[in-house]
C-alpha cells in the first residue's frame, strides 16, 4: 500500500496537527475549563468545512505536479457557484460543472499549445471570469439561493453525523489517487513535472496531459464552489478568493514540490487538515487577525525549513 506509506513531510505534518490540537486544548482548558477541540462534533465540523479547501487543493495539486499553477481557481469556483445558483435546478448544477470544464479547457489549451506561462495565463482567465460575473450579475440582484444538489453536498449530513461534503472529498480523493498511481495518465503527469521534453520524446502526447490536468483542477474548483454555496446556502461574489493561497500552501506543506514532478496525494490531505485546524484553533483562541496572519506565515516557513529545503546548486 504505497498510498498509505508515511514519509517525512506527512509525518511532520501529522506531528504539527497534534501539536496544534495540544496547544489549543491547553489554551481552552486554562481559559474556559473545557476541551472542545477533542470532541468529535468539533472535529467533524472542521472536516465538514475543510472539505471545500480539500477538494480545491486536490485539483490544485494536479497542476502543481506538472510544474504549473492555476491562479484562476478563485473565480472558477465563484463563477460556477453563481451561475449554477442563478439558473437553478439541475440545469444550474450542470452549468456550474460546465463552467469548470470550459475554464479548464481554455487554461489547458493556452498553457499547452500557446505555451504562455500558466502563472500569467490563468491570471488573465481569472480576470476575464471576474469581468463576466460582474457583467452578468451586476446592475440587478441575481438569484443566488443554493440549489437542492448544492445543499445536499455542501450542508446536509447523513444521520446528522456524516457530512456529505466529506464523503464527496473522499470520493474525489479516491478517484485522484487511483488516477495518479494506477493509470498511465497519472504517471505521465509525474513525468512531465520532472522533464517535459523527455516525456515528449518518449512518445507521450504531453499537451493533452496538460489540458487534462487543468480540466481536473477547474472541475475540482467547480465542485468545491457548488458545495461551498450549499454550505452558506447562497452564492456570492469573491467567495473563492480565500481559497487560492491556502490551497497552494496546503499542497506544498504536504510535500509536493512547487516546481512539479514530486509529491504524494496523502500529503495534500494532511496539508489541508493542518491549515484548516490552524485557522480554526487561532480563531477559537480569539486571536487578532494580525497575529493569525503572522502565525500562519511563520508556521509555513518553519515547516518548510524542516523538510522543504531544496538542493544546493553545485553545477
Amino acid at each position, binding site marked *: 500500500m504505497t498510498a498509505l506509506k508515511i514519509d517525512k513531510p506527512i509525518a511532520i505534518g501529522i506531528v504539527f496537527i497534534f501539536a496544534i490540537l495540544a496547544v489549543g486544548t491547553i489554551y481552552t482548558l486554562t481559559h474556559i475549563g473545557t476541551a472542545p477541540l477533542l470532541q468529535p462534533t468539533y472535529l467533524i465540523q472542521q472536516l465538514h468545512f475543510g472539505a471545500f479547501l480539500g477538494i480545491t487543493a486536490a485539483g490544485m495539486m494536479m497542476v502543481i505536479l506538472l510544474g504549473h*499553477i492555476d*491562479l484562476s481557481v478563485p473565480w472558477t469556483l465563484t463563477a460556477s457557484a453563481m451561475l449554477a445558483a442563478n439558473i437553478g435546478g439541475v440545469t444550474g448544477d450542470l452549468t456550474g460543472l460546465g463552467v469548470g470544464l470550459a475554464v479548464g479547457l481554455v487554461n489547458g489549451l*493556452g498553457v499547452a*499549445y*500557446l*505555451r*504562455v*506561462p500558466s*502563472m*500569467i*495565463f490563468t*491570471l*488573465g*482567465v*481569472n*480576470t*476575464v*471570469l*471576474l*469581468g*463576466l460575473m*460582474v*457583467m452578468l450579475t*451586476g*446592475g440587478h440582484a441575481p438569484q443566488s439561493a443554493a440549489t437542492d444538489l448544492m445543499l445536499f453536498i455542501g450542508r446536509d449530513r447523513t444521520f446528522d453525523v456524516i457530512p456529505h461534503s466529506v464523503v464527496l472529498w473522499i470520493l474525489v480523493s479516491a478517484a485522484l489517487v487511483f488516477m495518479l498511481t494506477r493509470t498511465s495518465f497519472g504517471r505521465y503527469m509525474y513525468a512531465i513535472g520532472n522533464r*517535459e*521534453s523527455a516525456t*515528449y*520524446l518518449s512518445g507521450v502526447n504531453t499537451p493533452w496531459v496538460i489540458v487534462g490536468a487543468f480540466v481536473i483542477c477547474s472541475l475540482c474548483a467547480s465542485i468545491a464552489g457548488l458545495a461551498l454555496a450549499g454550505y452558506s446556502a447562497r452564492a456570492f461574489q469573491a467567495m473563492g*478568493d480565500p481559497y487560492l*493561497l491556502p490551497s*497552494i*500552501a496546503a499542497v*506544498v506543506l504536504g510535500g509536493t514540490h*512547487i*516546481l512539479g514532478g514530486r509529491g504524494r496525494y496523502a500529503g495534500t490531505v494532511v496539508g489541508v487538515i493542518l491549515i484548516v485546524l490552524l485557522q480554526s484553533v487561532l480563531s477559537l483562541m480569539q486571536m*487578532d*487577525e*494580525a*497575529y*493569525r*496572519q*503572522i*502565525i*500562519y*506565515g*511563520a508556521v*509555513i*516557513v518553519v515547516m*518548510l*525549513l524542516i523538510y*522543504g*529545503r*531544496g*538542493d*544546493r*546548486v*553545485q*553545477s
Partner: protein
Amino acid sequence: MKTLRILIGQNLGLLLAIGMFVVLYALYVGMHPRYSMNVVTQNGNEMLALIFVSMAQASAVLVGGLDLSVGPLMTLTNTFGSHVLAGTGGNLILGVLACLAVGTAGGFMNGVIIVYGRIQPIIATLATGAFFIGLALLLRPSPGGRVNGDFSWALTNDINEFGYTYGWWEDLGWFGLLPMQFLILLLVLLAVWFPFKRTVVGRGVYAVGSAEGAAYMSGVQVDRSKLAAFTLAGFFAGCAGVYLTLQMGSGNADAPQAGEYTLRSIAAVVIGGTSLFGGVGGMVGTIFGAMVLRAITFIFRVVPEDSIFGFMASPLLQPLFEGVILLLAVSLGAARVFRIRNRLLLYT
C-alpha cells in the same frame, strides 16, 4: 544595419511594451475631452505605486524567482509610513528613509529565507506575505493616520507645485510642468537600478536567472546575487509603499488591495518583456508594462458613450474588457510558438 537589427531583436519585448503603451495612451488622449498636463499628473499618481511594485516583482523575476509578497510589503510600508510621515521638516526625510528601510528589511528577510533556507521563492514569499499583512494590521488595525499635507501635496503634483509649496521657486517654464512622479521614478532608476545593474552582483542577477548552475560554475556569487535581488525587490516595494502613503494621505492594511497589486505586478512584468523564467528583461520594460495596465483602465473612462464603442463605457463591462485585453496582451508571447521550427525548443 546589422547591429540595429540585433539591437531590435534583443529588445523586442521592450519595444512591444512601449508600442502597446503608445497606442493605448494615444487612444486615451484622443478621446479625452479636456486633456492637459493636469491629467498627466493625475495619471502619474495612479501609475507610480503600481510601477514600483512591478519593478519589485521584476527584480525577483530576473533572478528566476517570483515574489508574492511585494503587495503585502507595500501595504506594510504604507501603514508604517502613515505613522512616521505625519511630522514636519527633517522628520519627514527621516520618515521616508525609515519606510524605505522597512521595505528593504522585508526584502532582505525574504532573501535570507530563500537563499539560506533554500525554500522556493514563490512559496516562501506566500508565507512572508501573510506575515507582512499581519504586521500591517498590527500597525493599523483600522484605516487612518494623517500624513503631512504639504509634503504629500508637493510630491504628488508637478515640479512647479513642489517648489511653490516650500517657497523655493515659482515657475520653471515647461520643465516645471513635468509631474513629480516622473522625477521620482527617474531618480530611483538613475540612483539605484542602473548603478546596481552595472555591479558584479547586478550582472550576477541576470546570470543566475538565465542558468543558475552555469553561473555557479563560472564563479558567480549565486547566493549574494539572489539575496541582492530580493532585497532590491523589498526596496522597490518600500518605494511603492511610501508613494501610496503620500497619495492616500493615510494608512490602510488592505489585504485584497495588496493581493491585487501583487497579481497585477506579475502581469506588468510579463507585458514589459521580462521572461518569467528569469534572466531576460529589465526595469524600463516593466515600467512600460505597468503603464500599459493602467492605460487600459484609463481608456474606459473616456470612451464617448454615443460612439460605436459606446457600449464599452458601461461600468459593468469594464472588468471584462480589462480581462480580455490583459489575456490578449500576455498571449502575444505565444507568437514564438508559430515561428519555432523544432518542437523540442518549446520545452526549454
